[in-house]
């Protein structure tokens, strides 16, 4: 009985906190605006919370990127050797030297005195910025001062530029081993036969070997921007 008695007395309190008519109006406004929002987003063809400048609204085709060669041609030697069981021939394409126009180096250097001094280069090769390991790295750690057309290993052995991996492998032993086994670096050709390697210098600038960032191709289309649903509806 006590509880039943209390109810009528509490009612005015509740009324004061949330008057009936205005609370209904607030609810109505919220409901209408929400449903309008949903309707609007559906009409725009999307439901997710995606900013208009976010990726994934447009479908791209490989043909939109003519600068990328998707039809990669094999080296002629690899193509000719073809797939085979045990006769796996590994061929190294000629190195693409950054200084192709300058090669052979001896064209200029044969006539010049050798300056072993560590210094800022000014007249030539001033675009080379050494960013490769310790600060005291210098040209003649790798290049041969007596004959610039060859590279010099730590033990004094002279090697050609097409064998530069031996030079890199002196320090980067584990990566050299992976590269030799085909785990580091790109390979093209036949998984069961001939394939082409690339040299370290094809991908890494020996003077600043860190792989340079590249622009990514565009992301996939988000599901809410696929046009398929409408087309199915048309049928």
């Amino acid at each position, binding site marked *: 009985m006590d509880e039943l008695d209390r109810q009528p007395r509490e009612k005015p309190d509740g009324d004061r906190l949330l008057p009936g008519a205005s609370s209904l109006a607030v609810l109505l406004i919220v409901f209408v605006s929400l449903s309008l929002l949903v309707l609007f987003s559906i009409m725009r063809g999307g439901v997710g919370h995606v900013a208009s400048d976010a*990726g*994934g609204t447009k479908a791209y085709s490989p043909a939109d990127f003519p600068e990328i060669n998707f*039809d990669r041609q094999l080296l002629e030697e690899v193509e000719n050797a073809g797939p085979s069981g045990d006769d796996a021939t590994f061929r190294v394409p000629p190195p693409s030297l950054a200084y192709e126009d300058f090669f052979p180096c001896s064209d200029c250097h044969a006539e010049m005195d050798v300056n072993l001094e560590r210094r800022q280069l000014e007249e030539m090769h001033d675009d080379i910025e050494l960013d490769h390991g310790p600060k005291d790295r210098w040209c003649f750690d790798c290049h041969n001062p007596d004959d610039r057309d060859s590279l010099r290993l730590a033990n004094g052995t002279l090697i050609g530029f097409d064998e530069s991996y031996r030079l890199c492998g002196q320090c980067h032993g584990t990566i050299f081993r992976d590269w030799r086994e*085909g785990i580091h670096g790109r390979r093209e050709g036949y998984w069961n036969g001939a394939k082409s390697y690339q040299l370290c210098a094809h991908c890494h600038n020996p003077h600043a070997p860190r792989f340079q*960032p590249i622009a990514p191709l565009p992301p996939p289309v988000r599901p809410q921007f696929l046009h398929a649903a409408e087309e199915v509806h048309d049928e």
Partner: protein
Amino acid sequence: MSDSDSALETRGDGPEEKVDRRSLLIGGGLTAMAAVAATVAGSSTGFVERMLRRRFTELSPERKAEILDALEREYSERYGREVTVADTPPMDGVEFAYGLDIARCVGCRRCVYACVHENNQSRDPQIHWIRVLRMEKERGIELAESTAYYEPPEVPEPDAFYLPVACQQCRNPACVKVCPVKATWQEPDGIVVIDSDWCIGCRCCMSACPYGARHFNWSEPTISSEELNPNTHYLGNRPRPTGVVEKCTFCIHRTREGRYPACVEICPVGARKFGNLLDENSEMRYLLREKRVFVLKEELNTQPRFYYFYAT
């Protein structure tokens, strides 16, 4: 499409051949009941054989060649250029496996588009078989927090790493188990394939696949004639019709000829590796021996043939 007794051509387009699935099922139910009655009564054995599907026989090599020839003619006509449809069988003693070096991948998506270029996916509506997931270095591999829609001006971003995901070519594939019509199966060389002429588009396999590797052709796939790769395989990259599921096949038309998949060759950082698991000297065997490898969602026991690894 004139030869109506071909198993491959039962999805006929002609108005006379078109059988409504509902009436077929109802009819099938009735005939099944009739068959039971007939068997009980001990009559007509031909009828029972038909009910047990004994009438389906393996295609003869000649018939197979005819079918491939018909497909070639159909595609060539549709795209106005010569299209070949091969059915290169698996090689003996070969089981394919794939390796991906997460320490190298820069997330540039060259593989995604090389795959589309190679395998004749629809351009719009867009289908990508490879999805590159961006993850925070701080969090590690966290699929739920990853995104495929990243678009910075340059990759790799300093705080992120990238995990490309395509079909994992499972040894224990959930997708194959759920297919109600056996339109998808595992080949002896490990490739899980789909016969797109047999697929009924129920998409059970898509919901069964824990990697999101299967994709559906919601409407007529669009590829321009110039963009079409005319070098196709029956179980792989031949043009697909509307309403079927498709997925990565390790570039079946290339790898069964000895070539690397297209994504392996396009990768600018050489993060993608491919080889024969049964060959001791293959790149894949070296990788499994020498590197720390892992598979995605190991706890699901799908046993992928796709290994992720961290090279030094």
